[in-house]
C-alpha cells in the first residue's frame, strides 16, 4: 500500500511548495545583498522589517510543505498492519522451528548418555553405571 496515487500527489504538491520557498529565498537574498539606490554600499538593499516579513512567508511555505510530507508519510505507513502481523507470525513460527531443532539436540544429548551407559554396561563395571544413569534421568527431566 506504499504507493497510493493520493500519497504521490500530496508529495508532489509538497515538493512544489518547497521549490517555491527556495525561489522566494533566492529572491529575498538577492534583495538583501543588492544595495538600495541612494544607500551606502555594504548595507542591506531592503529594510529589516521587509526582509523578516518575506522570510516569514518562506517559513510558512516550508511548514505547509512539511505538513504535507507528514500526510504522505502517514498514508505510506497505514494499511501495513496486515503485513506487519504476517511478518510477526512468521517470526514466531521460525522460533518454534528453532525450538524444535533444539529438542533434536536434546535428543542427541540423551543419545550420548545412552552410549556412555552402553559402554559402562559393556565394560562389566556396574558401579560405573550409576553416574550415566543419573545423567540420563536429568536429561529427560529437562526436556
Amino acid at each position, binding site marked *: *500500500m*506504499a*504507493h497510493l496515487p493520493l500519497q504521490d500527489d500530496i*508529495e508532489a504538491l509538497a515538493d512544489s511548495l*518547497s521549490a517555491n*520557498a527556495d525561489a522566494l529565498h533566492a529572491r*529575498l*537574498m538577492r534583495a*538583501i545583498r543588492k544595495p538600495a539606490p541612494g544607500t551606502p554600499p555594504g548595507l*542591506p538593499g531592503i529594510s*529589516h522589517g521587509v*526582509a*523578516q516579513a518575506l*522570510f*516569514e512567508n*518562506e*517559513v510558512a511555505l*516550508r*511548514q505547509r*510543505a*512539511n*505538513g504535507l*510530507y*507528514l500526510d*504522505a*508519510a*502517514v498514508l*505510506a*505507513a497505514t494499511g*501495513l498492519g496486515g*503485513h*506487519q502481523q*504476517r*511478518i*510477526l507470525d*512468521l*517470526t514466531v*513460527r*521460525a*522460533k518454534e*522451528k*528453532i525450538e524444535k*531443532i533444539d529438542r*533434536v*539436540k536434546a535428543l*542427541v544429548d540423551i*543419545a*550420548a*548418555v545412552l*552410549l*556412555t551407559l*552402553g*559402554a*559402562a554396561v*559393556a*565394560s*562389566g*563395571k556396574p558401579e*560405573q553405571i550409576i553416574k*550415566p544413569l543419573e545423567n540420563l534421568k536429568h536429561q529427560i527431566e529437562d526436556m
Partner: protein
Amino acid sequence: MKMSRLLLILCLAALLGGCASSTPRTAAVREFAAQSPKLNAYHELTERYCATYQREQPFLSPAADQREKELDARRKDACGDFVKLHSGVQAYMQALGTLAGDEQYDLNDQIKAIGGGIKAWPDTGLLDRHVNAFAGLARLLSRAITRPLQENAVNDMLRDGEQPVREVLDAMRTLLRLYDKSNDNERDIVLGMLETEIPFVDAERNRLLLALAKSQQQSKTAEYRLFGLRYTLARNNLDAIERSHRALASQIPQPK
C-alpha cells in the same frame, strides 16, 4: 560382543542424524540476515524526524512557532507508528539468520561429548576408530537428512515473507525519502533565518552576536550536510536489503 557394540553405535548414529551443514544457500541467507543492524539507521532517523520541532523552535517567529506546534503534535502522533515499522522486519531477518545458522544443526559438540564419554571407558573395547567411524557416519547422515530439513525451513520462511517484507521495506524507503525532504525544509528554515538576519546585525556594536551567529551558521550547515548523507546511506542500505531479499526469494525451488 564386539559386533553388537558396533551395531549399538550405528543405531545411535542413525538416531542422531547429523552435524554441521553449511550450504551456499544457508550462507547467503546468513549474509542477508547479518544486514539487519543496518535497519537501526531507520530508527535513528525516525527519531530525528520526530524531534524536528525541538531543533527548529529557537529560530521561529511567534506566528511560525504556533504553526509548528500544531504540526509537531500531528508528527508526534504519527511517530508512534513510524518508529516501530522496522522492528518486525528486523526480527524476521534475525529469525531467518538463526534458522539458517551454522550452529543450528551443528551436532559436533554432541559428537565430541560422545567421543569423550567413550574414551573415559578404556576397558570397553571401543577404539578411536569406532568413534571416528561414528562421527563420519553422523556427518554423512547430516547431508542426507538435516540439510534438506534446514533448507526447507529457510525456504518456507522466505516464501511466506517475501511479500509482506517487501511492502514494509517499501514503506520504510518512502518514509526515509519524506524525512529527507522534510529535513531539507527544516534546514532552510534554520539556516535561512541566520542568513537573512546576519546582514542586519551592526558589526560594530554587536560583534559578539555576529560571531556567535556565524559560528552557529557553520556548525548547523555541517550538521545538516551530515544528516543529508545519512539519509542517502540509510536509503541505499534499505535498497541493498530489499535486493538481496528479492534475490533469495527468487531462488526458492518449487515445492515438490
